[in-house]
């Protein structure tokens, strides 16, 4: 991490959005993550999207759980209320917050440990409730803060930094979200700003639960030899050996590739990930064919990115319960309390 705060000096020529705000107005506190962490790129993308969408910062609520990923809401939108909940419970807190006030933009940021291990149940049920929010999983397959244990998204056969091999199959949040009925499911890579920005923008604008699984490499603990994300596996299956070059942790990984193409990316530890963008003819609304498409590429050891599933006909939580448009937190007590006359009438049933 850097320990020198960026001075807030706004250039007079800085572009301004519809609210007259600059992109700097959407920034937050200084990141305390490792230099070069993919999560910071996601933060940057959120800042950019919020700026471009001209969201009034105070109309945005940002929530997270516990873990490296969950620290990130502190690093964007300092004029927004933030809620760093306990481990794995952000989906429930977001559900309650959304129940109280449906008229805010909700961004949840979580990680693979937070959403797929300790918080798997809450993640699934928030999807089922179709809470109107953007839910980003910064997925690196590893526990960072506790130094390198496998998470539930670690691939079979992946090796931890200390050498232990993961024997348990990974949970794929995207395929799970599709099966739970999420209306917006996407995957991207933290270093692919070109793809990430429109996905975050679309996810925020989607009415209902929008999941974006962002593969976000851990510069310190990601060491997945033998997995579908690893250097070794990739070398055997797709490309000639790529030497495990040392990538300075201060350099962010950036990629650019076209739709339908596969793109090998060398991670910080030298392992490699192959991203394949969904092809132009891919239909994200055709649920039946999506499963076999994703399965096909998973078998081939590739990670499909892009908007994987989309259905905008689903009712979100408030519509499902037919709740008034006015935020519940703002309804005057006089409208909520039946009063003494009603109480006296009601009590006849108990006489």
């Amino acid at each position, binding site marked *: 991490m850097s320990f020198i705060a960026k001075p807030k000096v706004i250039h007079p020529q800085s572009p301004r959005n519809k609210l007259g705000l600059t992109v700097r107005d959407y920034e937050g506190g200084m990141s305390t993550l490792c230099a070069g962490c993919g999560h910071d790129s996601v933060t940057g993308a959120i800042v950019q999207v919020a700026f471009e969408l001209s969201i009034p910062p*105070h109309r945005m609520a940002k929530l997270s759980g516990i873990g490296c990923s969950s620290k990130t809401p502190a690093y964007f939108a300092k004029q927004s209320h933030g809620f760093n909940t306990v481990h794995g419970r952000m989906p429930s*807190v977001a559900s309650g917050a959304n*129940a109280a*006030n449906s008229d805010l933009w909700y961004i949840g940021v979580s990680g693979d440990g937070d959403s797929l291990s300790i918080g798997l149940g809450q993640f699934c049920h928030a999807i089922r409730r179709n809470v109107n929010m953007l839910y980003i999983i910064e997925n690196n397959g590893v526990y960072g803060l506790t130094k390198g244990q496998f998470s539930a998204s670690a691939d079979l056969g992946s090796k931890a930094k200390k050498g232990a091999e993961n024997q348990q199959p990974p949970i794929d949040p995207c395929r799970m979200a599709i099966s739970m009925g999420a209306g917006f499911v996407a995957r991207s890579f933290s270093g692919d700003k070109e793809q990430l920005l429109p996905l975050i923008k679309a996810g925020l604008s989607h009415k209902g639960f929008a999941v974006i699984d962002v593969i976000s490499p851990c510069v310190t603990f990601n060491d997945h030899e033998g997995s579908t994300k690893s250097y070794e596996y990739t070398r055997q299956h797709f490309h000639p050996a790529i030497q495990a070059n040392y990538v300075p942790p201060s350099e962010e990984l950036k990629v650019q590739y076209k739709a339908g193409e596969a793109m090998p990316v060398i991670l910080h530890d030298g392992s490699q990930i192959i991203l394949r963008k969904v092809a132009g003819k891919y239909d994200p609304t055709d649920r039946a064919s999506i499963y076999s498409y994703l399965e096909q590429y998973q078998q081939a050891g590739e990670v499909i990115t892009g908007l994987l599933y989309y259905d905008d006909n689903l009712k979100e939580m408030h519509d499902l319960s037919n709740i008034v448009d006015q935020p519940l*937190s703002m309804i005057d007590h006089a409208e909520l309390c039946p009063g*003494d006359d009603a*109480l006296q009438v009601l009590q006849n049933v108990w006489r």
Partner: protein
Amino acid sequence: MSAGPSNNDFTVRIANVNGTGSASANALLMKSFFRMGIPVVGKNYFPSNIQGLPTWYEIRVSGKGYMARAGRIDIMLAMNAQTYRKDLADLAPGGYLIYDSTWPRHKLLNRDDVTIIGIPLARMCNDQFATARSRVLMKNVAYVGAVAALLDIDLDVIKASLEKIFAKKPSLLTANHVAFRLGYDYAKQHFDNLLSFKAEPMNATSQHIMIDGNTATGLGAVYAGATVGAWYPLTPSTTVMDTFTSFCERYRIEEETGKAKYCIIQAEDELSAMGMVLGAGWNGARAFTPTSGPGISLMSELLGYGYFTEIPAVIINVQRCGPSTGMPTRTQQADIMACAYASHGDTRHVLLFPSSPEECFYHSVAAFDLAEQLQTPVIILTDLDIGMNDWMIPALKWDDNYRPDRGKSLDAAALEKMESFHRYLDVDDDAIPYRTFPGEHPNGAYFTRGSGHNMYGAYTEDSNEYLEVVDRLRRKWETAKQYVPEPAVDYSDKYKVGIISIGSCDCAVIEARDELLASGKGTNYLRVKAFPFTDRVQEFIDSHDRLYVVEQNRDAQLRSLLMIETDVVAEKLVPLLFYDGLPINARGIIEAINQDLAEGVAA
């Protein structure tokens, strides 16, 4: 509690099989006494089962208005062959056992000191009704008829009750009336004037209602203006949300649009329910969750979060028998300690202890105010006895001038004038900071975190900054004493011994004190209504040399809490503990106090 039954002082217990539809018949019988103007209370002992296991319903008729379990059965309706032996044994000497004489009774099962009354209920109903289901259901109404005849219950009252129940189903009204007469006429014909006591009309119930605590709690949440309810179904708390839902459907639907002014979320578990309540409270809605002991265990992590981050929340714990799954359909007060200090780290929570459905209603409203005034989770501890049994209470009143006390919060106008806002700053020196709601104003933004934070709301690992926050939270606890309800105290300097009790013990303590006084042993009484304990509790303790602490758990949890939180020597507090899962009765309290006083005299 007198030695034996007399007019308007007796108990009827109905032994039945779960799932046979006896609840409405039992309610009919109980309401008949109430509508004759006689105070009455119903206690339901039901199994954790849908159909087949034994169930008992106990109706205590008490002219003096005692609401505790009598601890004595004068009439037993033995309608369940599986429990017949136990039911006969439970009957008080001189009591009456009513059984279905359609089938022969085992000769060996007999007692010389009770009167056996056989009524061929099944045979009469089989002759009268065609379908198997109606025969079973109508047998229940027929036994009500038999009891009504034996106790001289006013027939007009029964008729009016049936008409009220079946106002929309006239065909059922006729059938029920016929069934009632089967039992009534048979008993009149064969056992007229047999009983040594009966029901006599009084005028002691006209200003009262019969209601269970969960209904009253749910109603209180509606009146308090709660808009978000999150929950996971859990006996015995389920009906809190059931009733909240039905009242909302009645009072909270916008006429023009048919849309709801409330949001109820059935969560996937209690952790989630607690998370939702915190999310909604943080966002400015009045939010609550009903639960029971196992739910409190699951919610504990988030309760600590709510305490440390200062988010209002209302939790209703309808206590049941623990530990673990325990006996889900039996009552206890064994979550006092678990709630007082729920969660890891130095945490403490504001608790309310209603003693009846009446206080459930008023405490439910108070809890929402307290939670916002103090910006912290507030737990209401009721129990299965209060929550699920029908109690007679004074009719509820509502002050239409009531406005919710939202505590110290800043709106957009206030924030506009401020240069900076800091969430955890003790501006007014009462240890309660100001809070803001998301969406209100850019100046109001702050970051809520369960990790160490300083008084400005920023992350910290600095010892001094941490201490400033946790020490202020401790001072806020002192402030809380000015807000929570004072204990109920009945004190006279004539008396040297005192009783301290809590929640549903109250009804039994009231009765026990009357009886003790009648035998020349006057006592003083304090019932705690809230935690933290106010100065009144300390004063009461200081004014006595010996205090009986009456509560319904094994480990003397209220006594422990008093020892931790007040200045008292352990020897002064004598534990009187009742924890078999049945609602407390006065007899145990009287016997224990008499014994202790006798030992004191002997010493």
